């Protein structure tokens, strides 16, 4: 059966991708941010997963407001970077883990969790940037992907508790997949940021640090928080952190926090990552 080899939580700020594109990785503004990901990258290289299940949100690039799936699962053979306004980025296409994707869809729906199923769809920086942060910029990605989109743009967004349930089910589904795939789960988004309204530029370094420490073994409070709590503590766009809950719920009750990194601000965002292994 397929095996979950670990979970990572990470920011997916678009300016991270732009910094890579423009060769700014070693500049004073960005070096401390990228250096902090080196242990995470090394962990990924050592663990050699076959598949990355990436939980992220689209940012008005693939989905418009004409149809807003609360959850969507990709079942495509390949995912191309979408044009976000500047032309598609020169990032390799992402090969889909088609059979695993369909298996997850079967299991989710059988268990009364009903995502939109996407056969032909592009991906934005929400998936691209986490992949680049943990796998660099290879000619071909060393893993296949299962993209899972969560609506965090138009209210009502799903509750943190629903994201948690999604993670629980995802684990059962992955571990019932007949194969020997090594699967890493990537929960993405955040950390604190607010891009809209007069509180724009809101960053909560204290709450971010507490999150990075607590998401491993003090997760209950985050699981039980309301959407309003997320917005208040992490900013309107920082509520993206609910997607880390999907990853965390797919892990054991007790986990080992292998790596952690925080840097702020990346553009207008508190940014960072954790790497978790089942204890």
């Amino acid at each position, binding site marked *: 059966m397929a095996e979950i080899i670990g979970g990572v939580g990470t920011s997916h700020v678009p300016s991270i991708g732009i910094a890579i594109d423009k060769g700014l990785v070693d500049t004073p503004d960005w070096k401390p941010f990228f250096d902090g990901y080196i242990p995470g990258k090394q962990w990924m290289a050592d663990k050699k997963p076959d598949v990355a299940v990436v939980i992220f949100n689209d*940012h008005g690039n693939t989905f418009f*407001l004409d149809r807003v799936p609360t959850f969507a699962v990709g079942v495509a053979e390949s995912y191309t970077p979408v044009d976000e306004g500047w032309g598609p980025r020169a990032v390799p296409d992402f090969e889909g883990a088609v059979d695993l994707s369909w298996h997850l869809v079967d299991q989710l729906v059988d268990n009364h969790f009903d995502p939109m199923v996407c056969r032909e769809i592009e991906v934005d920086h929400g998936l691209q940037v986490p992949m680049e942060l943990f796998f660099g910029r290879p000619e071909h990605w060393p893993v296949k992907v299962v993209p899972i989109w969560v609506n965090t743009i138009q209210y009502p967004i799903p509750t943190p508790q629903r994201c948690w349930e999604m993670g629980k089910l995802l684990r059962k589904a992955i571990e019932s997949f007949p194969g020997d795939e090594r699967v890493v789960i990537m929960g993405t988004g955040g950390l604190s940021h607010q*891009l809209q309204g007069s*509180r*724009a530029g809101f960053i909560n370094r204290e709450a971010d640090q507490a999150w990075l420490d607590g998401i491993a073994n003090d997760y209950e409070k985050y699981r039980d928080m309301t959407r309003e709590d997320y917005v208040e503590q992490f900013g309107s766009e920082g509520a993206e952190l609910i997607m880390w809950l999907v990853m965390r719920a797919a892990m054991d009750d007790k986990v080992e926090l292998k790596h952690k990194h925080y840097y702020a601000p990346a553009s207008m965002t508190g940014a960072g990552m954790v790497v978790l292994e089942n204890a």
Partner: protein
Amino acid sequence: MSDPTQIPETPLFDRERSKQGYRMNKMAMSLGKPENRAAFKADEEAFLDSYGLSAEEKAAVMARDWHRMVALGGNLFFILKIAAVDPAVMTEIGAAQAQMEHADFLKQRLGKE
């Protein structure tokens, strides 16, 4: 959602905003295609008209008034594509939301020296 408006200075993109800003956001979304970016650049007002924007919405877009666009239901993730056609830095857009000078915004909100 009980009452999202209770979080200070934070306009959540709820049904009212989504309905209100639909045309402006749809126009902005279309800038993900190069031919639409070219049309926007060639004759901006005609392009905005083709999406049925009101006079108020047009004025906000044409003035690159990010604060006003959001007030009219624009969602940042869509209207950001306007900054791909007519470049603006994210933190400048943020400063405009907060109605602050860019340098003050960087220092006071983002903690940059």
